[in-house]
């Protein structure tokens, strides 16, 4: 049942109570941080856009989210007539529950002693570790998909199909970049991943996977989970300008709030997961006093840095078009992370092999792009260039781009038509 020392001496009442306490603390911490995160996002983004932002409820508007939450609770709960009632009610929970369950994997700090029991500062540490993250993110696809379908109307359905296609596509890139972390760690457990990143290169640079894996898996992972979270610039599945609003068009009151609760919970969880996978989790300089507190503090600081990064992305980048989104996922991120896994695997055997694979994959990428260019050029030539030169007497005939289906047209000889024109 995982490597938590708490469970290694049998299960007693105290152990059960500690686990319940951990679950409660994690739940409360996540809820409160969602509250603060929404306020933080609104404040930061209004600063970036030269606005003031929420400033009425509480000092600096910090209670604005609470007010909004209470308002949403007391609004009328509409269920569309043509909806599938049970699935319609089920869908928001399918989004929210996985968002919370993923958070339980994150190691928040080091090992502490509570009531005479040694335990890790993390709710669970299952042996399948990071695979649980993948399993939960596949479940949250159901939330989005069923929400759109059960609404019984067109735009939510289209929105949900888009959204689930996006989430499934980017899951592949996400899984591949996680695989390279697993490759260097040799374990799926998040605690082992954090432990493997302890130490320093040359006594200065921390031995984080960010450095160790050569930045590529980190970048792929960050982009992939931004899409997975439906955060800007990949938020076209739930933006107001697209398809009315996407899968949650028909939702109102608390069910609507649950979707956004899930999204913000996921944002926080995924920032924490990035920190765990690539930035050494709670590792950092540790002064001698208050030994248990420092790892938690470092963890929080790193996570907030990523939360700020997400808000910044939202303020800075325009939204992608749907085809650009799919191209980025399938044609850029997945090939890059596949090649990089080979490189990382080669590096695990020896340096020479690793660099060899790197050079080979770069060379094959160049060749592939050259081949695609040549193919495109050939297609263009047969589409546009050939049709006029085959028929026209003027070599510099106006190259009218022929519509497909019109280009094998057998015209009368040009001389004839031009003379008749001259008449």
């Amino acid at each position: 049942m995982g490597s938590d020392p708490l469970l290694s001496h049998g299960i007693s009442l105290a152990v059960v109570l500690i686990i319940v306490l951990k679950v409660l603390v994690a739940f409360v911490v996540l809820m409160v941080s969602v509250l603060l995160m929404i306020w933080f996002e609104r404040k930061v983004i209004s600063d970036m856009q030269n606005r003031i932002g929420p400033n009425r409820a509480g000092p600096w508007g910090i209670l604005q989210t609470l007010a909004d939450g209470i308002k949403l609770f007391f609004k009328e709960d509409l269920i569309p007539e043509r909806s599938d009632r049970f699935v319609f009610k089920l869908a928001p929970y399918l989004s929210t529950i996985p968002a919370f369950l993923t958070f339980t994997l994150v190691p928040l700090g080091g090992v502490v002693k509570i009531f005479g029991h040694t335990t890790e500062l993390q709710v669970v540490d299952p042996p399948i570790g990071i695979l649980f993250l993948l399993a939960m993110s596949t479940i949250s696809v159901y939330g989005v998909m069923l929400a759109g379908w059960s609404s019984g109307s067109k735009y939510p359905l289209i929105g949900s199909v888009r959204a689930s296609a996006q989430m499934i596509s980017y899951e592949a890139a996400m899984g591949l970049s996680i695989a390279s972390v697993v490759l260097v760690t040799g374990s799926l457990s998040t605690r082992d991943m954090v432990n493997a990143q302890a130490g320093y290169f040359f006594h200065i640079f921390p031995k984080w996977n960010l450095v160790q894996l050569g930045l590529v898996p980190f970048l792929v992972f960050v982009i992939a989970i931004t899409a997975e979270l439906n955060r800007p610039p990949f938020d076209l599945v739930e933006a107001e300008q697209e398809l009315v609003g996407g899968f949650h068009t028909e939702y109102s009151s608390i069910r609507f709030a649950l979707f956004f609760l899930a999204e913000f919970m996921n944002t926080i969880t995924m920032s924490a997961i990035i920190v765990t996978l690539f930035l050494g989790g709670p590792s950092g300089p540790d002064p001698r006093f208050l030994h248990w507190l420092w790892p938690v503090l470092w963890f929080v600081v790193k996570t907030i840095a990523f939360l700020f990064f997400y808000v910044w992305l939202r303020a800075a980048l325009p939204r992608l078009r749907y085809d650009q989104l799919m191209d980025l996922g399938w044609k850029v991120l997945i090939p890059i992370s596949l090649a990089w896994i080979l490189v990382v695997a080669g590096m695990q055997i020896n340096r020479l092999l690793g660099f060899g694979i790197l050079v080979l994959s770069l060379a094959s990428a160049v060749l592939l792009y050259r081949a695609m260019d040549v193919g495109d050029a050939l297609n263009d030539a047969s589409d546009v260039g050939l049709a006029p030169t085959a028929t026209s007497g003027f070599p510099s005939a106006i190259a009218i781009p022929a519509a497909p289906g019109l280009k094998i047209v057998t015209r009368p000889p040009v001389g004839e038509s031009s003379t008749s024109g001259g008449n």
Partner: protein
Amino acid sequence: MLIATVPIALPDLITFLFAAVAALVGAGGVILLKNPVHSALMLVMTLFSVAILFIEEQAQFLAAVQIIVYAGAIVVLFLFVIMLLGVDRKEVIQKETLKAQRPLAVVAAVLALLEISLLARTNWATGAKGVTSSTNNSASNIVQLGRAVFTTYLLPFEATSALLVIAVIGAVVLARRSSGPQQVVVDPEVAEDAAEANEQTEQGSLS
């Protein structure tokens, strides 16, 4: 009576009963519910319950893969097809497309049940946890699976992956929309019309 002879801890028993009942209810729902989307959701419930049983048997990796692959990819694909093809309404299943379909199904079910009970005659419940040797080591599950797949069963593994690649290429070839000029079939009438139109525009531009 065979179950009673084997000592099973209470938490294990509760987990097993819960997951087994949920799996059976889900399986029943798949074939009994009228709406295809509801059936697919019931299938997800069954897959989850089986995953819980896997965890109970210390096969955590298998449980995770079960959820990621089956619940996460395959059933999502089912749902895609159901939603996009618009078959998500209640179907009339009174009419049988194959004659004697239902009696045959009952016979097949009884046969399957008989086979299972014959196979399981001696070992209903062994109380053993996991077929991999050591279950105490947390990583052993994945390590052992990896060893087995990449040494003992390397050839079947590679053959399976080759099969999957062939399937992907086949799907791409079938689904590809041809766009080369050589594939354009020109209707002679359309071609004539177009020629006339061309001629007229040329005349117009020249005169």
